[in-house]
């Protein structure tokens, strides 16, 4: 430490404010409290904000947001897949229905041919008798 440092320390020693300083601070606080009373209803909002203010809470919030985004993304992807599967099942059902209908039409045509032949044979036999 040299003399110049000591001079600076002496020049910048602490000073007291006016004697009524503390009283004035306390008076202003009392005034603020009076004004703040009607605002007590919104106090829960301030408390909630304060709860999320510490840095640890900010990190926790960021983590929770990432997890929530992952869950939402995963859910959205699953719902898209389910919808695609449902549409595929409907299309498959439609195709099966069409095949059944085609089979029925073929069977019906074959039956009518057979029936026609049976009638023709029966009528030929009747004529020859």
């Amino acid at each position, binding site marked *: 430490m040299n003399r110049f440092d000591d001079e*600076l320390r002496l020049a*910048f020693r602490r000073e007291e404010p006016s004697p009524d300083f*503390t009283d004035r601070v306390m008076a202003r*606080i009392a005034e603020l409290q009076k004004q703040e009373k009607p605002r007590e209803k919104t106090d829960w909002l301030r408390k909630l904000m304060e709860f999320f203010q510490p840095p640890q809470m900010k990190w926790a919030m960021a983590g929770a947001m990432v997890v929530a985004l992952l869950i939402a993304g995963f859910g959205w992807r699953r719902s898209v897949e389910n919808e695609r599967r449902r549409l595929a099942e409907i299309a498959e059902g439609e195709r099966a229905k069409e095949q059944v209908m085609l089979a029925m039409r073929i069977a019906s045509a074959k039956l009518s041919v057979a029936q026609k032949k049976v009638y023709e044979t029966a009528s030929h036999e009747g004529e020859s008798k």
Partner: protein
Amino acid sequence: MASEKRTDQLIERKEVGMQRADDTLSRAKDGDQTAFADLVREHQAMVFSLAHYFSRDRATAEDLAQEVFIHLYQNLGAIESPAHLKFWLRRVTSHRCIDHARKKHKMKTVSVDDAPEPVAPPCFQDSLMTATLRRIVATLPEKPRLVVTLRYQEDLDPTEIAELLEMPLNTVKSHLRRSLTILREKVTRILGEIKV
């Protein structure tokens, strides 16, 4: 033997003081207005002096100090210990001072080298050197002024100042070095014969 006893007494007194400060803080946090007033009384000289040496105006300094303590009252829940309280008050006061200077533009800051030399006679209650030093420091730009005030009023080392002002350590050291060089030069020029 006697000196050991005195050291023990000093340590004991310091511990009692710390316990009392802890107790005052927790009572203030519980809403005890008297305890909060005690906290204000305990730290008002520190907060006021920082603001006063920065603004060079008692009324402005008292307004700034009041704002700092009201802000403290509103954020008392976040204060963890008496040491944290001191750190918090120094930091908030420093930031308030800089904000005030920027808003008001009352104090026209100039570069350290271009700072005008004080011409007004010193205040009668201060020594010539004290008054000259205060006036030269008042002409420094905001950040170097705060760094010098924190260094010599609060006796903080550059690491603590860097942490307080959220500034790189080398910047703090360079502000201090440059400011001290200028201060020495100007004081020598003004006071001539006085050995600095």
